[in-house]
């Protein structure tokens, strides 16, 4: 049983070695070597994951490193160690992370070719893999938190990869700080767990919960809500989603890996992982569901009008994550994870394809200046198409199965479920609309390369290449593979997937008996909705003239383009007041008045009295003599006063001076 000890840690450690090699020596090494290192280690850990997968399928005992785990933090009697555990859920995540991750590494080799700081990029990417695998392998909350913050760091570094671009730095900072708000919730949740369970270990917490259900609901709800805060931060849900669109400042492969496929799904993973807690708190679950649905709808609406190809995808990511939260919220964890997986496929594909487009256009990201790329870059076009169909939820593409599963679960989830389902369905409509809008604007129609230029040319790559060109094979291979996955990734089917995850997330509360044809109807409905979305998009953008859209619906458009002014509201409502408080409240009142002022006051009093005393020295002999005489007089009076106290034998004279 010590053999899993051998390879489980290796899964994260291998990319870490890659990070160290590239990070320390990278600047000196030739690009070829850098990319070899960068590819070799993730590939190796993917191999290990595959091996783990085989172990799981062949029904061997699941490898766990708990008691032998090296100790990390000792808190009172609680010993928290670097415990790793592998189970079905983790396995799915690992497959996605290392698999998709490797593909994106591969893609990056081509995409980042011309960047300086090439080595830095791959070092960061490996670092991200390290933390992400730690996150999913961790067997306790604290170690999970390590990965949690670590991926945040990696994303910060990668978003700010173009270190000479101010906006990139801002975006990175924003991402990290907003995530920190979430981490704050996570921390508090851990403290509560420590307080009420005395452990942070997933299994032990679950055991205690199973043990005595008398755990007070209040605490559990609080814990869940704190965890949820963390999840909303990492997975860009309302109210903390604002960082994700800006995160598109990073290189596109990064957006694909971190901000679409893996990191942002950590929140979903965490909720699924902690479902034992959530199951005990319907309130928390309801909040999750509502937040998820709201986010899904909200983000979808914004996505409809974005003109930056990556931002469209970003908002669509937020929206899809909303679906996953909805899934968790209605207790369909396995469905959520299922969607997580398929989404990883097609969203990564979308980003990579977008990246290939951007690459082809030499850094152009503005939809209004694309168009007609179908002929120039066919591979990109076809793969992208697969992805679009998948996300729109057409049968039999991957997206259909997972999204359908979630909606179905929502539909069967009591009264609130119906409402949620309705919103979710509407969102599906919007989704297919904006995806096809993007599709049309990018590939169909004729090129608008000389359109309105208001989006600054992305720091990426050379100047705007007049004629677009297809990307090199090293970038296309991942596209093809992911396209294949997006097409057939869902064929496993919800039942089998749910059954596979059952040991972790508990059985799927799938519709019993008669639920069959309801499911059918729902699925049909979903496909219809998707088709409708396509139709609308086609009717507006299908023909070359897309100005009608601009003309119609001015006001709502404006609202959406300004993203409901949420960023502005946050700045005006939170950031500015805090800065004002700091600068004036603390800086002036606190520092200058209280801290400095008090010191100055004392010093002033002292030196003033000193000045007064110096005035004694008039320099005039007679005044000195006068002082002396006065002093002598005082002294004599004091002494003679002694007689008043003790006439006989100087008995008890003045004692007050002493104690």
């Amino acid at each position, binding site marked *: 049983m010590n053999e899993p000890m051998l390879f489980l840690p290796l899964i994260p450690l291998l990319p870490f070695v890659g990070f160290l090699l590239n990070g320390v020596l990278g600047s000196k090494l030739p690009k070829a070597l850098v990319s070899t290192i960068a590819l070799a280690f993730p590939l190796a850990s993917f191999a290990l994951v595959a091996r783990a997968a085989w172990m799981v399928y062949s029904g061997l005992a699941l490898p766990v490193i708990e008691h032998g785990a090296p100790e990390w933090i000792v808190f009172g009697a609680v010993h928290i160690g670097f415990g790793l555990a592998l189970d079905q859920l983790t396995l799915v995540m690992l497959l996605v992370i290392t698999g998709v991750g490797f593909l994106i590494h591969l893609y990056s080799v081509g995409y980042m070719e011309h960047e300086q700081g090439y080595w830095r990029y791959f070092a960061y990417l490996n670092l991200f893999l390290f933390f992400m695998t730690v996150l999913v392998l961790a067997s306790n909350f604290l170690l999970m938190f390590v990965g949690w913050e670590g991926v945040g760091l990696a994303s910060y570094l990668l978003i700010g990869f173009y270190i000479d671009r101010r906006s990139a730095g801002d975006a990175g900072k924003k991402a990290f700080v907003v995530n920190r708000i979430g981490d704050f919730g996570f921390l508090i949740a851990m403290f509560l767990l420590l307080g009420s369970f005395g452990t942070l270990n997933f299994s032990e917490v679950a055991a205690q919960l199973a043990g005595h259900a008398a755990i007070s609901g209040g605490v559990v709800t609080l814990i869940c809500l704190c965890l949820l805060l963390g999840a909303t931060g990492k997975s860009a849900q309302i109210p903390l989603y604002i960082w994700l669109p800006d995160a598109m400042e990073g290189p596109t492969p990064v957006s694909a890996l971190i901000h679409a496929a893996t990191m942002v799904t950590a929140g979903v993973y965490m909720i699924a992982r902690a479902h034992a807690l959530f199951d005990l708190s319907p309130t928390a679950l309801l909040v999750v569901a509502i937040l998820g649905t709201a986010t899904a709808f909200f983000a979808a609406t914004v996505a409809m009008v974005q003109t930056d190809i990556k931002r469209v995808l970003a908002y669509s990511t937020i929206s899809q994550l909303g679906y996953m939260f909805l899934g968790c919220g209605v207790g369909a964890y396995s469905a959520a994870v299922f969607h997580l997986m398929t989404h990883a496929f097609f969203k990564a594909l979308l980003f990579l394809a977008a990246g290939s487009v951007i690459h082809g256009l030499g850094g152009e990201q503005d939809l209004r200046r694309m168009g007609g790329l179908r002929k120039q870059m066919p591979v990109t076009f076809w793969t992208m198409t697969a992805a679009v169909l998948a996300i729109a939820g057409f049968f039999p593409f991957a997206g259909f199965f997972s999204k359908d599963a979630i909606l179905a679960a929502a539909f069967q989830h009591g009264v609130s479920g119906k409402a949620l389902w309705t919103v979710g369905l509407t969102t599906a409509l919007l989704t297919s609309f904006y995806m096809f809008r993007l599709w049309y604007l990018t590939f169909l129609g004729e090129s608008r390369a000389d359109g309105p230029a208001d989006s600054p040319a992305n720091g990426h790559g050379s100047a705007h290449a007049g004629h677009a060109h297809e990307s090199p094979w090293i970038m296309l291979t991942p596209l093809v593979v992911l396209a294949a996955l997006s097409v057939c990734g869902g064929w496993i089917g919800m039942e089998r997937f749910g059954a596979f995850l059952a040991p972790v997330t508990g059985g799927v509360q799938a519709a019993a008996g008669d639920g069959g044809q309801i499911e059918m109807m729902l699925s049909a409905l979903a496909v219809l909705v998707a088709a409708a979305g396509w139709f609308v998009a086609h009717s507006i953008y299908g023909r070359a003239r897309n100005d009608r859209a601009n003309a119609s619906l001015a006001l709502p458009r404006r609202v959406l383009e300004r993203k409901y002014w949420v960023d502005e509201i946050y700045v005006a409502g939170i950031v500015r007041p805090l800065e004002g408080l700091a600068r004036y409240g603390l800086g002036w009142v606190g520092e200058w008045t209280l801290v400095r002022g008090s010191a100055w006051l004392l010093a002033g009093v002292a030196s003033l009295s000193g000045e007064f005393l*110096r*005035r004694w*020295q*008039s*320099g*005039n*002999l*007679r005044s000195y*003599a*006068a002082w002396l*005489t006065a002093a002598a007089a005082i002294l004599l009076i004091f002494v003679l006063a002694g007689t008043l106290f003790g006439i006989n034998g100087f008995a008890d004279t003045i004692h007050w001076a002493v104690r």
Partner: protein
Amino acid sequence: MNTAVPAEWYLILSAALFTLGVVGFLIKRSLISIFMSIELMLNAVNLSFVTFAHEWHAVKGQIFVFFVMMVAAAEAAVGLAILISIFRARGTLTVDQIDLMKL
């Protein structure tokens, strides 16, 4: 002849003289006069020494007086020298004008 002046009177006189000296020190403007008022104070003390010596029939008092006179003489020597140097340096003996050093 048989009625001697009581000792207290001598003491009071000496006290008065002493006070006179102090006052002189305070109000006189010329350094010489100030110096003389110090001499006055010393002699006032001498008077009370003599008185006490007579009271106690102790010769110590008289001895003390002689020593005081001697010391006063020494002080006079030094003091006058200092006053001369003051006059040389400043051209005045008015105490109110001699305040180069103050504060």
